């Protein structure tokens, strides 16, 4: 397998930064779920209901970022094209 080039690493880092808030929230959610799995209390899973809006809105935000919503623009909501938020 060819070693990634410097520009390849930079592109990956750009992509990770672009989704950083989404990644951090999903990782946080997964951490809580993993910890809940160690409790052996079936009732704990009912509490995931409260976190579903969190997960849902986070994933939706990730989808909007993927679509290229550019929050830097004062006219928030203007579609700036794919990848605009990371430039």
């Amino acid at each position: 397998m060819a070693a990634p080039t410097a520009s390849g690493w930079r592109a990956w880092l750009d992509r990770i930064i672009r989704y950083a808030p989404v990644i951090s929230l999903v990782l946080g959610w997964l951490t809580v779920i993993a910890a809940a799995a160690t409790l052996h209390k079936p009732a704990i899973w009912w509490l995931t209901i409260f976190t579903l809006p969190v997960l849902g809105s986070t994933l939706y935000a990730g989808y909007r970022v993927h679509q290229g919503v550019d929050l830097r623009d004062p006219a928030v909501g203007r579609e700036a094209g794919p990848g605009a938020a990371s430039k």
Partner: protein
Amino acid sequence: MDAAIPVGATSEALDDFDRRLLIGAAIGIGLVVAVSTPVHFLAPSLLHVPAAGRGGFGQRLGLDLISLTMTALCAAHSVRTFGRTATILFIIGSFVFTGAIENFLVLSGRFHLLPFGTYTFIYGGLLYFVEVPVAICLGWFTIAYSAFFVMHTVFRRINPLWSALLAGVFAMCLDLMEDPVMSSPAVNAWTWLQKPHSTLTLFSVPVYNYPGWLGVIALFELLWVKARGWEQQLGKPVATRRFFLGVPLVAAVYLGVVLGFEFFVRAHLPHVNLGFGGL
């Protein structure tokens, strides 16, 4: 209603003001961490550090590294989205804001300055900001910033002040599962010191914790959004001065409301646990 957040410079080099702000904060926070970390580990009796809070070098190092990595990624995202000054204000402000509030609650409960126990952190990283793990302060930044970004992305046409409030609701929803799980005896990342049935609890966690999460995120972000407006209208120095004068003021208001709520609950509401299935 204007839905736009004033946008700071994202591409220009770090100017003198930002550089001085960053260096000053790094020195101030660094000194507190440099003093309190050895005190926590080498002189635990000084601040009555619980015995269960020591040990686990690899786990502590991992927690610090993960927190630092996520903080760096979110900070880089924030610089691109809201500009350098706004990012610096968010990071320093949230670190100091949450650090001060959490330390006040942890230490006042530990030293019986309040008529009820509060909570203490059992697991933390290698670095401490007085008696709160640095990983907690950094984690607070990533949650607060990410929640604001998600709410502002999902509800793009609303005023940013509403995004701040919704971010508080967002964080509270997350905590409705996080706190019962992470403070449960089996996980024990932190522990609540109030005895069962000494106050009103929801899923075994004192009920004031939940509006507390809403308030702590929403109030800080409201101040931050206002500071972004001040930066555009009055310039960086005035905005920064107002912001950092506002941080302790908002923290005091927050503590007054949250602790007042708990005093009211203890005095007037039944001391029962609202839960089910052992929660």
